[in-house]
């Protein structure tokens, strides 16, 4: 029960962070590029995590399955945060 609350807390925080980044983009037209850069870098890091899953999972001492779950959840939260921000209008 507490574990579920813990995981959902991380997810919500991830969504809010993504929304924050997207909001940054809405402040000034020039910042759009900055935000896009941020998202691209995040996407690249996320992809690298998939490629180097063995090493990072061993380093963090989690099971592979849990590691994949973490990656997918992070990606989903970023997408949801950014997407919602974009859909609901800057």
């Amino acid at each position, binding site marked *: *029960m*507490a*574990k579920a*609350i*813990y995981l*959902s*807390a*991380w997810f*919500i*925080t991830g*969504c*809010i*962070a993504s*929304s*924050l980044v997207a*909001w940054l983009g*809405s*402040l000034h037209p020039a910042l759009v590029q900055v935000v896009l850069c941020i998202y691209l870098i995040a996407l690249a890091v996320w992809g690298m995590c998939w490629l180097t899953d063995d090493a990072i999972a061993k380093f963090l001492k989690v099971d592979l399955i849990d590691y994949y779950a973490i990656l997918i959840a992070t990606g989903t939260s970023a997408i949801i945060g950014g997407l*919602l*921000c974009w859909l*609901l*209008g800057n």
Partner: protein
Amino acid sequence: MLGGTAVLCWLLGLSPLGKLPKGVFLMLGFGCGLQLIQEAEGLIYDEAIAKINKSLNHGLDAKTLALQTLAAEQELQMQFGGQQPTYSQEVLNELRESLEHLVKEEIANAAPDTSASTSADRNRKSFYLAVKSLLEVHSHTYIIEEILGYRGRKFNEGNTALQNLLEEGKNNGW
């Protein structure tokens, strides 16, 4: 509750309020989210401690129950099981002595049979004893005619055989 405020702030931050309020709400929501993470960690720790306590208490309860039942059993045994036997000590001794005598007698009776006699002798002896016991019920004539089988003219032979048998038994002390 904290989770609720975090989600609310997030949604408010997404709604078209105006740039600054949106930003404010989003940052508030972010702070709420971080706080939520900290609280959840504490909750996990508390739950783990509670689980450990529960299992320890359970083990302790099981052990106390076992000890109590053991003590109750011992008390009951002392009350009901520690009685004197129904026979007195002299009677017990007499019984034990008579039993020993019987056993020795049995051994003594068995020993001559197995050591000194052949099977023919044993058969003869048991035959003699059977005839002797029959003599208590039937007459000589019956025994000679039916058991030994000397009928009619052979009656005298049978009579002699019977007398020989009886003599043999008496001489041997059967």
